[in-house]
């Protein structure tokens, strides 16, 4: 069974290995230059007092790859689901070859188990190697940006791509098994995968670990916006802050009154059009406002990575289990 699965999956593996090798060469050549450049310019810029120039110059290096990598990381798991997962069973059902496979002296369960595990492992290995290369290559940029929890960066580094690949693959197999036709199964795989990943990143990821709450007197150095809103004469005070928590993923940053109310009261005359910014901030400081910040600290990067990967792997396993149940009970 392993031979047959390998024989059927050989072409895909070769294509993936080729694409990975190509990318590996490009990243290895440019990546080692980047590390060297980082060490000689950005890392020593404090001593030379030219950090702004050094960082600006560094960030404009290899912009083609910087633009390409997010696209590759975004589409790679989806492609795995569409082109490896969806046809795995659907193509056999479509062409009727399962009737040949299932009447050899190998149980249907073993047939599916070998197919799922072999192709699934290749999928995960592909995503893992890709992420490993990208994470290494991007590390100087990530060090500069200091925001590895940023949703666009978080899902393209570390181990979560492995989880995405496993989930996309299992999703494709399941869709193919239920729909029994390759092309519709591909479309459904793409739609469901995109919805799940987007929904997870927007709604679920932040709450994987209970976030930290920072409740403290308003830090005036974080205030980025002051003013008023509403009709003239009835306008209310508006204070916006941008917390400076390096590496943290801030979900909400709210300014409240000392009593905890979010409505800050009537607009301050000192913040009107005829006054200076410093007069306004001084007036705000006298109100003794407080700030409530809900955030995930940057130190939780790996914890969040493990949780998210575990959840996607569990989803993939559940789908695989469903496939096993279905192939034994329902499919002909």
């Amino acid at each position, binding site marked *: 069974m392993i031979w*047959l699965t390998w*024989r059927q999956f050989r072409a895909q593996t070769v294509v993936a290995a080729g694409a990975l090798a190509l990318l590996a060469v490009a990243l290895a050549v440019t990546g080692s230059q980047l590390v060297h450049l980082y060490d000689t310019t950005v890392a020593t810029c404090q001593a030379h007092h030219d950090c702004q120039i050094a960082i600006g110059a560094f960030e404009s290096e290899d912009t083609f790859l910087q633009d390409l990598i997010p696209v590759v990381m975004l589409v790679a798991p989806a492609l795995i689901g569409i082109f490896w997962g969806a046809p795995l069973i659907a193509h056999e059902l479509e062409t009727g*070859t399962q009737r*040949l496979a299932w*009447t050899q*002296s190998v*149980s249907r369960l073993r047939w599916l188990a070998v197919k799922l595990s072999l192709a699934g492992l290749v999928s995960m290995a592909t995503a893992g190697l890709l992420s490993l290369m990208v994470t290494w290559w991007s590390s100087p940029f990530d060090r500069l940006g200091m925001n590895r929890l940023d949703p666009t960066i978080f899902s393209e580094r570390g181990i979560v791509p492995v989880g995405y690949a496993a989930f996309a693959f299992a999703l494709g197999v399941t869709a193919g098994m239920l729909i029994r036709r390759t092309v519709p199964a591909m479309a459904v795989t793409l739609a469901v995968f995109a919805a799940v990943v987007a929904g997870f990143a927007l709604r679920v990821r932040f709450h994987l670990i209970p976030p930290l709450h920072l409740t403290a007197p308003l830090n005036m150095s974080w205030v980025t916006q002051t003013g008023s809103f509403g009709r003239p004469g009835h306008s209310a005070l508006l204070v916006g802050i941008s917390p400076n928590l390096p590496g943290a993923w801030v979900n909400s940053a709210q300014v409240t009154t000392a009593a905890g109310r979010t409505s800050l009261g009537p607009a301050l005359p000192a913040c009107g059009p005829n006054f200076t910014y410093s007069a306004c901030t001084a007036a705000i400081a006298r109100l003794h406002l407080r700030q409530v910040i809900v955030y995930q600290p940057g130190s939780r990067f790996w914890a969040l990575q493990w949780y998210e990967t575990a959840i996607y792997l569990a989803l993939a396993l559940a789908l695989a289990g469903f496939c096993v149940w279905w192939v034994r009970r329902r499919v002909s």
Partner: protein
Amino acid sequence: MTNAIEARALGKRYGRRWALADCTLTIPAGHVAGLVGPNGAGKTTLISLATGMLAPTTGTVEVLGGRPAAGPGQLARVGYVAQDTPTYAGLSVADHLRLGAHLNPRWDAAMARARIEQLGLDPKQKAGKLSGGQRAQLALTVALAKRPELLILDEPVASLDPLARREFLQSLLEAVVDQGLSVVLSSHLVADLERACDYLIVLIGSRVQIAGEVDHLLDTHHLLTGPRRDPARIPEDLQVISASHTDRQTTLTVRTEGPIHDPAWTVSKIGLEDLVLAYMSRTADAARRPALEVQR
């Protein structure tokens, strides 16, 4: 002796439609048994149930005394050539033999190679590039080299041209003689079965209409022609399968164990095709009467 296929009250339902309902039949081993019936009679469903492709909704089916596809051991005993003889289009002929060798403990590699050579197939050729007849032969080779005790074929020749059809059945029969295996072969083309089978089952609307050895069926069925007469006045010992009347003449297909003495009838031998057609043309009403099996 165990039976090749034994079904008891077997049924398979898709949604509200019964593809096969309450089917009870026995196909003995040691024969090349033909399963014949009109399209929609449930032949493919019956075979899919017997090969374990489908699970029954009701009833049971046993193949060589075991549950279909119950495990590797049971799978190894039964060879299957499915309808339209599926093969992997992207794999070569040699790959199919390798597939068989990897997936079957009793694989006869020498026989498989010899058959491919004898058929003149190029081992490097992709199965998707083969003609329909060659593909059917490849599927048959994979099924035979597995060394099954029973070979089940579902309309294997339906899509082949007459020459390929003849060659396929020829090589099937040679293999049967060589390997001494039982065969169950379904077809809606009686001419094919006449050439290949020594046992016949007529299945119409999930019901066995008649089953028995071909020679015996031919010996006990007769075509009677005579002056027109009232169907009610036909002797009791004749079971009328089908009757047709013109103004002056009546033609009957009858079944009887004994000789026919009435001199008013002209008795002639019946061909297998006419026999099967007589059963198929029985009215739906008559088809609901309990089926009789030929006892020997």
